[in-house]
């Protein structure tokens, strides 16, 4: 051992001894501790004495070492100083009394007090009482326990006022012997960092709130299908109350394996393709077995290097929407079923006349499928232009009126016509705009037929009733006529006798009148005319009731007319009437009693003549008719006596006179009915004429000409069979 070293040792021992003594005499040291310290001092002194022998030798050596050590120490101190002055953290050293021993530049700068000014002072000199007190109690705790507090964050009041967030470590300061001689601390101002972190946190919370309040479920899944981030909606979707609970789980935890597998495969597809997709999904969630309809958007997620690490999924829950749609579809389906099973054809046509829908009955009716009808027009479906025109007219009326209208419509089918009562109505969209005409048609063909049948039956019944009434009237009439006939002969005889007697009397009187008695002559002439009138009436009656036997023979109709015309030729000329008759020798002959038919014709000619007082034209025509075309009197029995194929010759006598008043027409054939002035007619002429026609199996009909320019009489007689 060198002298220097020895000396150093002895000096160190002395220092220890000295320290021990100092400590021993320290006023607060306990008695036994002082004694120990004094012992140690004595041992040190002895050691020093024993080594003094070699001390000189080693002195030089130690001096060299000492210089070297000083240099090294200076060096370290320079480093330390440099470090202290350049570190941004605040560093201080305090003694046991919490007085600053050392402060670095950063702390001094921060405090605004030169380092030298701080040394020997405590926090109480710079800080508020509370902060200083807190620091002091921290330090006392460290001093007592030897335990430091490392890396804690606290709010620090600043000496210059204000405060800051600091990251602090406070540690015990020990001497070489490990004794705690004070404390030291390092604090970094992390206010900016803390504020930044707070802002970040706030932002994160906002983002979270945003995510959680979005009704769409949002999640990020990685390659393994694990949920990395989920929002509240997703948690709810999978039946969890806490999004945090879902994080780290996979779809397998919440959905049936099949579906989960599919999701993850989809994820992989999106990640591999690097493109987003949107597609609908329907899943049953495990928690409550509820079927959810989702519209899913998946977007690949990339990290800052652009590598895909997962997918961002957004599920829009369209279950309610889907269910509403389903409900609408259900309702529609139900309506369609009702509509399809209706026995009535139903249809809707657009305002342009194109079919929008038809029901099954409609399809059946036209033998076409709905899809072949929709989009077509009536003309294309029904075809019958006439029918279609009427239908379209009805449709237009509904569009025009804007309210339901009922129509009777007829449609021709290959197997016949069918009638419908169609209720057609405007169809409006939600804005109230008419976009179509709807229709429901009810087949009333059978009903109409039944109605028609009923009507026919009714008609027939009424006809029968009328016939019956007429027959009854005819019976009465016939009875009346019969009586008249029976009476006529007797009456004629009884009336004619007095007439003859009067006639004779007049002859006598006439002769015996004085030649100049003009008055008397005139009276007698008048009386003779009276007798003539009476005779005529009687003659008519007799004709009517006379022998019904007739002398029928074949005779040409033109001959009948010509002969009859000859009989009245003179009278016609006198009355200024021209007879217009062109004989037609081609006509077949008729079976007739010439005298009687001539009587009829003459009667007709005379009647015509009487109606043409101012002259005119008497037109006589003959023609051949089939029995069914002959005009008949009401209730005529001739109709029943003719057979199909029977031919009749009709002689028409037309005048240009005044015609017959309508109310008179029906009475023309009544006995004693006459329109002629008294004395001009007997009222029996037509009665007898008709009787004669009937006895011939013919008919005598009187009517007015259509243009009211006179009367027309038609006498029909049976033509000879060929």
């Amino acid at each position: 051992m060198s002298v220097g070293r020895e000396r150093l040792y002895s000096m160190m021992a002395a220092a220890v001894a000295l320290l021990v003594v100092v400590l021993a005499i320290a006023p607060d040291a306990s008695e036994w501790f002082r004694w120990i310290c004094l012992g140690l001092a004595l041992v040190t002194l002895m050691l020093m004495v024993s080594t003094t022998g070699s001390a000189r030798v080693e002195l030089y050596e130690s001096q060299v070492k000492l210089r070297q050590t000083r240099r090294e120490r200076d060096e370290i101190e320079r480093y330390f100083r440099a470090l202290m002055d350049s570190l941004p953290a605040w560093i201080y050293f305090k003694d046991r009394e919490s007085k600053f021993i050392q402060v670095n530049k950063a702390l001094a700068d921060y405090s605004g007090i030169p380092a030298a000014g701080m040394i020997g002072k405590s926090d109480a000199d710079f800080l508020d009482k509370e902060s200083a007190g807190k620091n002091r109690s921290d330090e006392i705790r460290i001093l007592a326990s030897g335990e430091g507090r490392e890396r804690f964050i606290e709010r620090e009041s600043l000496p210059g006022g204000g405060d800051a967030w600091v990251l602090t470590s406070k540690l015990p300061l020990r001497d070489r012997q490990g004794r705690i001689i004070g404390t030291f601390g390092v604090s970094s101002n992390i206010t900016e960092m803390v504020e930044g972190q707070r802002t970040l946190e706030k932002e994160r919370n906002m983002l979270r709130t945003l995510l959680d309040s979005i009704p769409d479920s949002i999640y990020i899944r990685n390659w393994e299908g694990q949920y990395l981030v989920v929002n509240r909606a997703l948690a709810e979707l999978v039946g969890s109350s806490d999004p945090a609970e879902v994080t780290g789980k996979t779809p397998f935890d919440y959905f049936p394996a099949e579906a989960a597998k599919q999701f993850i495969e989809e994820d992989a597809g999106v990640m591999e393709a690097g493109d987003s997709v949107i597609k609908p999904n329907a899943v049953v969630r495990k928690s409550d077995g509820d079927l959810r309809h989702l519209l899913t958007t998946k977007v690949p997620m990339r990290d800052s290097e652009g590598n895909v690490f997962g997918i961002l999924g957004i599920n829009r829950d369209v279950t309610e929407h889907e269910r509403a749609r389903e409900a609408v579809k259900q309702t529609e389906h139900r309506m369609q079923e009702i509509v399809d099973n209706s026995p009535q054809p139903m249809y809707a046509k657009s305002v342009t006349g194109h079919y929008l829908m038809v029901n099954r009955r409609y399809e059946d009716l036209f033998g076409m499928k709905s899809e072949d009808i929709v989009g077509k027009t009536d003309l294309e479906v029904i075809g019958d232009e006439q029918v279609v025109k009427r239908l379209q007219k009805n449709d237009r009326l509904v569009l025009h009126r804007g309210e339901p209208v009922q129509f009777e419509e007829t449609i021709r089918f290959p197997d016949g016509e069918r009638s419908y009562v169609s209720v057609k109505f405007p169809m409006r969209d939600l804005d109230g705009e008419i976009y179509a005409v709807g229709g429901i048609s009810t087949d009333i063909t059978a009903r109409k037929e039944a109605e028609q049948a009923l009507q026919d039956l009714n008609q027939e019944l009424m006809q029968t009733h009328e016939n019956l009434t007429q027959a009854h009237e005819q019976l009465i009439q016939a009875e009346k006529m019969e009586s008249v006939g029976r009476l006529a002969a007797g009456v004629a005889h009884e009336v004619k006798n007095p007439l003859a007697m009067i006639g004779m009397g007049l002859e006598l009187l006439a002769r015996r009148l004085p030649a100049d008695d003009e008055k008397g002559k005139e009276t007698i002439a008048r009386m003779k005319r009276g007798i003539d009138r009476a005779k005529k009436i009687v003659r008519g009656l007799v004709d009517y009731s006379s022998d019904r036997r007739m002398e029928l023979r074949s005779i040409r109709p033109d001959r009948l007319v010509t002969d009859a015309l000859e009989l009245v030729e003179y009278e016609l000329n006198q009355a200024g009437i021209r007879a217009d008759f062109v004989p037609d020798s081609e006509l077949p002959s008729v079976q007739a009693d010439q005298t009687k038919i001539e009587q009829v014709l003459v009667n007709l000619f005379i009647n015509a003549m009487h109606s043409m007082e101012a002259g005119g034209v008497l037109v006589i025509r003959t023609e051949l008719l089939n029995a069914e075309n002959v005009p008949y009197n009401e209730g005529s029995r001739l109709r029943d006596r003719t057979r199909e194929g029977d031919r009749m010759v009709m002689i028409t006598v037309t005048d240009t006179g005044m015609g017959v008043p309508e109310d008179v027409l029906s009475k023309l054939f009544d006995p004693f009915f006459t329109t002629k002035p008294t004395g001009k007619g007997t009222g029996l002429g037509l009665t007898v004429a008709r009787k004669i026609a009937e006895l011939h199996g013919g008919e005598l009909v009187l009517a007015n000409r259509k243009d009211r320019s006179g009367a027309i009489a038609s006498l029909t007689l049976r033509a000879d069979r060929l």
Partner: protein
Amino acid sequence: MTKKPKVLLIDDEVDFTELLAENLEDSGYVVRQVNDPTKALAAARSFLPDICVIDLVMPRMDGGDVVTALKGDISLSNTPVLMLTALVEESPDDPGELQMKGGLPFISKTSALEVIINGIKTQLGQR
């Protein structure tokens, strides 16, 4: 002057026969009337007329029976008859025409005197 022809009127109508008789007498005939047909034959037998003018419808015996009776009498069988009755009508075309029915000439009772006289003349002329 020729002898006046005798006419027997057989008719139940008294008023008529009276007037006709007077007219015929005025026209130069000798006239006798019988108003009961049952007495006609007797009257004819006694009167022996040149012509009998007979009504058809009479009570108890009609004109036909009277004609039969007259024809059955030898003295009267050739005496012409003229049936004057209300049962026949005057022919509208020729009022003076004698209508032959059943072989007998008929003339309407309501005919004018002239017509009747013509009828009588015609029948007398046939004798």
